[in-house]
């Protein structure tokens, strides 16, 4: 296997003005990540942990402040944007704002081909029709406008547009969060089917741990701009080692009779990203934190096909 996307030591700083003074917000504080061809890698974490910033680096929309991002073996900023778009395509959360309301669905879906000047107008329309059929959109919608279709259908349009140029990597940022339950399951099934049909690699950004469990091969847990634990999905869900991963998993509310909310013992607030704590980023909320956690950032420890950063990992359960 080879990595289609590699992120090494990436940081991303934003200059912001807070209270009349300028300050540096470090949204990413050193990310190492490799996405292997054909896998679905999920990034999970709470709002503000940097997962959307990371997705923007992986799309080449933004450049890291330090470190590097490589796509198919080449630095991502070395590509012409049209060449980059042949390799990686996004799917965003909100299909109401990601589609141009004044374009027909057919021309939205064909846009990647139009931009690069592939084929004729007629051949692009034929390809758009094929792609719309592949994602389960009825043929008569080719001349409809976004306002005339449902939220689920709009997300199908966004998926068709992303796939028409046959990219190798799909970056999906919360692709089902804005959708109703019954529509969410259709889009999850569609992403699963497209992945097999088009031999896709997927970077899935989500806060929904149940959706991630269903779709992802591997999961990386982010906290305050760092990956604190990563591993194969089954192993990570069965045997989390980082207390933050444990808290996220405990917060899943299964729709089964008698399920009670578990006590989530991690305080009420993530720390201010302008003043991150010394040492371990999670120590201010961690029930196990001790002196060493304030003194040093825990190094990566390998486990179960993955790694974690914690001075006081949860015990590895003995079966």
């Amino acid at each position: 296997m080879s990595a289609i996307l590699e992120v090494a030591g990436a940081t991303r700083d934003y200059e912001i003005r807070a209270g009349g003074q300028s300050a540096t917000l470090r949204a990413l504080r050193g990310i190492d990540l490799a996405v292997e061809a054909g896998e679905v890698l999920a990034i999970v974490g709470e709002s503000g942990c940097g997962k959307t910033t990371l997705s923007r680096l992986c799309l080449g929309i933004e450049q890291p402040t330090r470190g590097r991002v490589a796509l198919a073996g080449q630095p991502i900023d070395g590509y012409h944007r049209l060449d980059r778009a042949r390799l990686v395509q996004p799917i965003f959360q909100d299909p109401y704002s990601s589609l141009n309301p004044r374009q027909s669905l057919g021309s939205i879906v064909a846009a990647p081909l139009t931009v690069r000047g592939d084929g004729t107008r007629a051949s692009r329309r034929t390809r758009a029709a094929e792609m719309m059929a592949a994602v389960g959109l009825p043929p008569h919608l080719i001349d409809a406008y976004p306002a005339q279709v449902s939220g689920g259908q709009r997300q199908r349009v966004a998926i068709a547009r992303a796939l028409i140029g046959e990219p190798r990597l799909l970056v999906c940022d919360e692709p089902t969060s804005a959708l109703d339950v019954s529509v969410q399951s259709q889009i999850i099934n569609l992403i699963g089917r497209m992945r097999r049909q088009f031999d896709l690699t997927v970077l899935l950004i989500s806060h929904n741990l149940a959706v991630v469990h269903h779709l992802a091969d591997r999961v990386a847990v982010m906290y305050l701009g760092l990956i604190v634990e990563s591993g194969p999905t089954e192993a990570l869900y069965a045997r989390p080692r980082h207390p933050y991963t444990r808290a996220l998993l405990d917060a899943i509310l299964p729709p089964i009779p008698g399920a009670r909310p578990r006590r989530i013992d991690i305080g009420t607030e993530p720390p201010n990203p302008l003043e991150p704590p010394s040492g371990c980023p999670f120590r201010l909320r961690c029930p196990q934190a001790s002196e060493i956690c304030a003194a040093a950032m825990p190094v990566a420890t390998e486990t179960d096909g993955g790694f974690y950063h914690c001075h006081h990992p949860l015990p590895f359960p003995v079966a």
Partner: protein
Amino acid sequence: MSAFVDIAGLKVTIPTPQGPLTPVRGLDLQVVKGETLAIVGESGCGKSLTALALIGLVPPPCRVSAERLSFDGQSLLGLGAAAWRTLRGPRIAMIFQDPMTSLDPCYTIGSQLVEVMRTHRRISETAARQRAIDLLTRVGVPSPAARLGQYPHQLSGGLRQRVMIAMALSCEPDLIIADEPTTALDVTTQAQVLGLLAQLQDETGVAIILITHDLGVVASVAHRMAVMYAGQVVETGPTAAVLARPSHPYTEGLLRAIPTPGLTARGAPLGTIPGIVPPPTAATDGCLFLARCPYARPACAAGPIPLAPLAPGHAQRCIRPLAERAGEPGYAALVGADG
């Protein structure tokens, strides 16, 4: 116990030049004291309008009508503004989805909490401020005294929702209506806020109507649940009974559509409900779920279908409930469909 909140035949109608829309078309619900009833349904099913009807905030030009709409024995139909003010706040409180838009950005947390208490009660400024600190402590806001001087934008989403809960509790209401109270929050915060609501209910005996689209939230906090579809209740009963043996095909479809670690096979296709929700203009003859139902029969189109009792406290609106359709493939025949 007699019903504390009693709704029968609730209709919300919106007049339009093309004819009236009825987003809520004949809804029946009861809530008893001290319980949590969850109203579940997808966008546009009428669950939020139902909540607004209960606190008299359905916006014009919508019209509310009902056979019965009562709270603690008092009819809410045709109440004037003055009568609503004695209920809204002191007796019935509301928590909305997005605490950023329901708190006033121009006033401090303290002044907003104090204003609510001083509007409805004879209480001094000092006493109200002290009570505000007590309430913030109770809902788990760290350093509450300092928070009183802060503005909403200085708080995280989870803290803002805790402030909303403190405000809802400030006049010791008998009923809290919470409309998607945790949808805008992070997952860990969601679990904490739901735990808080359950704990406050144990302490005060307040009844809660929880409006949500998330069946996981329902399972974790609701005593009873009502599933809404196209402006009607299609199934209602004790949460455990409905989740264990969903009788209406729509409830069954919703449960099949949710991935659950440990229960659904990873990567296997999830269940789907074909088609889309009928528009609120659709004629009400026959079953409203008919066009999407994998168990439908010609008889389903014949006429309005009543909410039929199934077991004590458990009722549903299908002429072919679970027992009648045993052995049919139903949704199983659709597995793998994503269109």
